[in-house]
């Protein structure tokens, strides 16, 4: 086992449900501060790969490393639980359907995990919530309940909630797919802001324009493998693979 060199390193990731292989030997390196977009048709395995990084969908083979520590380390159950909870504190995740906690206010959504896991005081927690919500432009709604927010606002709060744990890596699982078109931009702006602050991000997305404008690298996945990988201008303008060209063409037609 060689020590990893990259900030995030996925080595030979493999995942199958019974005989169905959804990830086939995928490897990926992401450097600190880099932003990688994963695109591909539904069922390509892109969400599964993302959810494997924080072990929501555990791999059946391969390794995930973050900053020199293996995420999916082989440990006895009890120790593994402790380890993975620790790792997840360092990996923020944003879901397609927000998954805000409906019984908590915006403030409580943001502070619940830091208070519980980092044992910060109420005062520190309030300060943290204000900072993080200000960052995503949601400070005015700090004492609202999720049900009182629009989809775009919910997603910005969800981003603030993840950031409040001060993660080393952020994962976005189709963060704007469930939003009405007019609400997409406000979320994209927040993500762009994070990019400018050099947050390391892995983004599963359908939005090619956004991927092209923000990401350092684009991965095109299909049927559980990485078909093509490179800087956005190359993957989008001059794809080398037939499958990539087909996907992009269909996607462009769909967008019209």
């Amino acid at each position: 086992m060689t020590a990893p060199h990259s900030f995030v390193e996925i080595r030979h990731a493999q995942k199958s449900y019974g005989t169905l292989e959804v990830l086939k030997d995928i490897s990926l390196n992401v450097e600190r501060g880099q932003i990688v977009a994963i695109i591909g048709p539904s069922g390509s395995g892109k969400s599964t790969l993302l959810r494997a990084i924080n072990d929501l969908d555990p791999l059946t083979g391969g390794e995930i490393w973050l900053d020199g520590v293996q995420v999916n380390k082989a440990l006895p159950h009890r120790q593994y639980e402790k380890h993975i909870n620790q790792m997840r504190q360092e990996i923020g995740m944003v879901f397609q359907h927000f998954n805000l906690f409906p019984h908590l206010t915006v403030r409580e959504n943001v502070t619940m995990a830091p208070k519980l896991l980092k044992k910060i005081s109420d005062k520190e927690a309030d300060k943290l919530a204000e900072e993080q919500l200000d960052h995503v432009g949601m400070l005015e709604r700090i004492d609202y309940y999720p049900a009182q927010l629009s989809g775009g606002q919910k997603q910005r709060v969800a981003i603030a909630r993840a950031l409040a744990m001060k993660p080393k890596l952020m994962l976005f699982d189709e963060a704007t797919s469930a939003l009405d078109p007019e609400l997409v931009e406000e979320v994209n702006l927040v993500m762009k802001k994070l990019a400018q602050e050099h947050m390391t991000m892995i983004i599963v997305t359908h939005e090619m324009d956004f991927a092209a404008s923000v990401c350092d690298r684009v991965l095109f996945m299909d049927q559980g493998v990485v078909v093509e990988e490179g800087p956005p201008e190359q993957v989008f303008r001059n794809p080398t693979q037939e499958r990539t060209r087909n996907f992009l063409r269909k996607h462009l037609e769909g967008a019209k």
Partner: protein
Amino acid sequence: MGLDFSVLPPFYGTLALGVLWTVAITAASAVLSFFGGILLAVIALYAPMAIRLPFRFLAWLFMGTPLLLQLFLIYFGLVQIGIDLPAFVAGVIGLGFHFAVYNSELIQTAMIAVDKGQMEAARTLGLSRRQALIKVVVPQAVRDVIPPIGNNMIALLKDSALVSVIGVSELTLSAQRAIGQTYRAFEFYAAAAVLYYIINLGMEAVLRWFENRNRLYR
């Protein structure tokens, strides 16, 4: 023998004390049934088989037999095995456990119905399974079942009359004591009925208030 409600005033104190005990036993049992219900729901959904099955059996037993019979079992059964509890405590345990079983059924259904994404989001933030259950899943499930749990608690108020048979001096037994002295059954049972009705209205008002307060988060 006709009706003569002038027999009531000398016993106002007795009845008032009965009301206090009825409220006390209802409140104590309601609290026990609420937290017991959550505990039983978590056991039913997450405990290992060896623990789950006996609890499942116990729940089945308590839902299939009369509360009155269960009260006799608890009151006399505990004495049998050398635990001599005051009637009040035996009553609270009996009522509390009986309704905990019913509450647990409601809470289980609601816990299953909480969106899977909620557990995922909590786990993603680094919460353990137990923390996620306590902080995220259970509070949502409980809020979803406040109306039916409230109905159970109102049923509990009325069933609290049953503990009179094991000698808890609540409202029903207070009325019986007064009848023992006056032989005026109709007047005192009617008075007890009115008092229960008023407590019932009060509980319903509290429940309404609670439901409204909880509407906000939806």
